[in-house]
Structure formats: C-alpha cells, structure tokens
C-alpha cells in the first residue's frame, strides 16, 4: 500500500478535530467565570499581603530573636499566595522579621548587590534559586505583588507573569511566548538598597548540579534577565520557570539575611 498523501492526512486530522461546542452565550459564561476567578485570586493575594503589612506595622507579628537558624528565620512576614502544604513544614512554623516597620523602603546604611545566583533544578519537581547578596538586606519582609508594574511593598517584592506578555523594566515582551511553557517569576529589589554602579547584569550563575548534567525530564529555568534600577526597583526576571502560578512560588530571606530564596514547586 502506498503512504497516505498529505491531503488524506489533513482530512483525517481535521475530521478528528471537529468537536461539538456550546452556544456563544454558554462560552461567554465560562470565560466570564474564568476571568472573574483570576481577578478574585489576584485581589485576594493583594489583600493578604496588605493585611500582613498592617499587622507587621502594628507589631503583631512575633519576633523570635533567640532562634536565628536559617530554617526559623526563613519565612517571609508579608506572606504570599503560595500553598504552604507544598513546602517544608519547618518553614511554616515561625514568622519573623528584622524590622517591624511598614514604612516604604528608605535609603539604607548598608548598600547591597547580587553577587551570584545559585540554581538547583529538579528539587521536588521544581527548582530553588538563591540570590546571594554581598550584605544583609535592610528589611527581610518579602511581598507578593499581583501586578509587576504596580508594586506596593516595604522591601523586596516578587511577581509572576505569564508568557503572553512579560514586562522587564521598560520593555514589554509579547513575543517570548514561542516555545515557552511558562512566563516568569520576577524579583524586585528596592533600588534605594542597591549599591550605586554595582552591576545588575552579568551576575554569575552557580548550578548545582551542573546544568549540563541534568536529565532531560528535569525542568530547569531559562534565562535570568537583570535590569534597572527602574521605577524604584532592580528587577530580575527568571524566564521559563517550572511554574508561573503564584500559588507555586515562595520567596523568603534566609541565611544571615544575605540570601533570597526563591522556591518554585509546580
């Protein structure tokens, strides 16, 4: 038998793809539900962060100065949308902050910059990225920003963007969706904290294990773009992470307040 022609294959595949669909009104209802659900989740995430900032400002969040182990100090104070159950129980136990002030970031005595970015791929199906600073951050609170272009945070913020449109400082990339399965996780560091003239680009990566040795079925983030200062922040966009769902992302300050851990768990 001869091989089927292109036309035969086209006809067969198109016949398979003919699926019955609901009425336009019913479809509208479904998309309306989806759209309002997305907005509701974003508003909830924003209000959760705002409420936590208020609590921190009122001194309600407990400081635990006697226990300074990384595991105990890791949790961020302002919270975020991530589902705790995906993350280690030890990291859920305590909320602590170095500063209980909710005032906006001010010029700090200690300027910082990113020395390197450590990347661990294939951790529980996701990845860990650690931004290592050359000094302690002035405020350990980390805030989820529902909109990367409208940030209200007392210190470091993070956001997520889907691949349909990724804002990297002044640039908006809508053509990055080609081949990308997720958009970005964005880290925003107050530019007031940043050491003047410290390089934002060309920060070395440290892979563990080496990226070349990763199995094919292990996700690894794509490029990390650094830019700014722009609109008050230095931005690092982690492109093509294992997830751009805010519920899958947790960001916290660890170590001697000189490390920012980004955990992504799809």
């Amino acid at each position, binding site marked *: 038998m001869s091989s089927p022609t292109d036309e035969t294959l086209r006809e067969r*595949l198109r016949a*398979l793809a003919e699926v019955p669909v609901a009425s336009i009104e019913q479809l509208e209802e479904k998309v*309306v539900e*989806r759209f309002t659900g997305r907005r509701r989740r974003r508003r909830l995430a924003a209000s959760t962060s705002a409420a936590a900032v208020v609590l921190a400002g009122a001194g309600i969040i407990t400081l635990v100065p006697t226990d300074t182990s990384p595991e105990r100090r890791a949790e961020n104070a302002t919270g975020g949308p991530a589902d705790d159950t995906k993350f280690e129980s030890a990291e859920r136990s305590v909320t602590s902050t170095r500063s209980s002030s909710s005032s906006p970031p001010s010029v700090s005595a200690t300027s910082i910059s990113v020395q390197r970015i450590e990347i661990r791929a294939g951790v529980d199906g996701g990845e860990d990225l650690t931004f290592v600073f050359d000094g302690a951050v002035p405020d350990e609170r980390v805030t989820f920003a529902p909109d990367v272009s409208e940030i209200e945070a007392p210190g470091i913020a993070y956001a997520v963007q*889907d691949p349909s449109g990724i804002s990297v400082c002044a640039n908006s990339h809508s053509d990055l969706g080609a081949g990308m399965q997720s958009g970005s996780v964005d880290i925003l560091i107050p530019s007031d904290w940043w050491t003047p003239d410290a390089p934002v680009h060309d920060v070395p990566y440290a892979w563990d294990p080496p990226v070349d040795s990763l199995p094919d079925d292990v996700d690894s983030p794509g490029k990390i773009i650094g830019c700014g200062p722009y609109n008050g922040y230095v931005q690092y966009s982690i492109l093509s992470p294992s997830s751009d769902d805010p519920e899958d992302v947790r960001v916290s300050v660890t170590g001697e307040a000189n490390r920012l851990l980004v955990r992504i768990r799809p």
Partner: protein
Amino acid sequence: MRRRSRAQTKTHGSGVLQDVRLDLANIQLRGFFSSDYQRVLGAVTLLTGSRPAAEDAVHEALARAWERSLKTEHDSIEHLDRWVLTVALNVARSRWRKLRRETLQRDVAAIPEAYANDSMSMDLRQAIRDLPDRQREVIVLHYVIDMSVEEVADLLGLSPGGVKHALFRARHSLANVITKEEVV
C-alpha cells in the same frame, strides 16, 4: 483587539456581569467564538488527548487575553486565534506536566484514565497521543490549523528544519495507522 480603560470597565453598571459582557464584546471574543473557537479547541483537544483539558486551557487563554486587554494601554493582539492557541498550548503543557507528576506519584497506571477522552478510542487518535510531544504539536498545527512550516517554527521556537524533521517522523508514524485502516 482594542483596550478599554479601567475607568470604563467600572461604568455602565447594573452589575458586574453586564460590565463584563461589554468588555467581552469589546475584545471581539464573540467573533472568536463564532469563527475560530471550534478549530482551536479541536486542535488543543488533539494535542492534549482530552476535551476537558483542552477547554480548560482555551478558556484560561481567553481569560488572559481579556485581562491583557484591560492592562495594556497601547498593545493589542493582532491575531487573537494564534495568540489564544499559543497560550492555550503553554497552559495545557504546564497542566499536563503537573497532572502527570501528581499522577505518577499516586499510580502510574492511572495516567491514561486521567487524561482520557471517552470518544478517543480510534487507532488514529491513539497514534496521535503516542507521538512525542513535539511531533504531535507540529503535525496538529500544520494540518489542523493550517500553519506553514515557518509559522509552526516561529510559534514553537524551533528551526524550520526541526519542524520538517518532526513532520516527517509524525507523518511516517500516522501513515502506518492509516494504511492499516485502508487495508481493513
């Protein structure tokens, strides 16, 4: 697709749903539903092997298109069908990957059930599902959406040569199935 200002979305109110419908009309979703929806949904159904998963991905893409239209001042989506297809593909891949991971942890044998479509019992459907992801995407985009090799390459971030190679391999696999059907 034209953008409405945030202020506009809050007016005309006799309820959120009414405002929402005005937006829906404004971003030409009705046009998409009547002219492109079935084709895009059919393609994503073939790609995922599941009608519910495809609907989920396409509706998520449409919600994102709508959200984008409210967020971006001057940016517009020139080809809503291609845009929705691209985003739906990304969503489907991401969710399929997540489901596969979760399912693998529970029961490897449950994978086909989890993403099965009741009507997907034909040999050709099974052959499409058995194709490697890249070959399946290439052949569906080329034959169902009618995209050229260059357009498929652009959408998937591949070289045209890579697309041709994947097309050749997929065509060969599916040809065997069709040939068997013709013999029967």
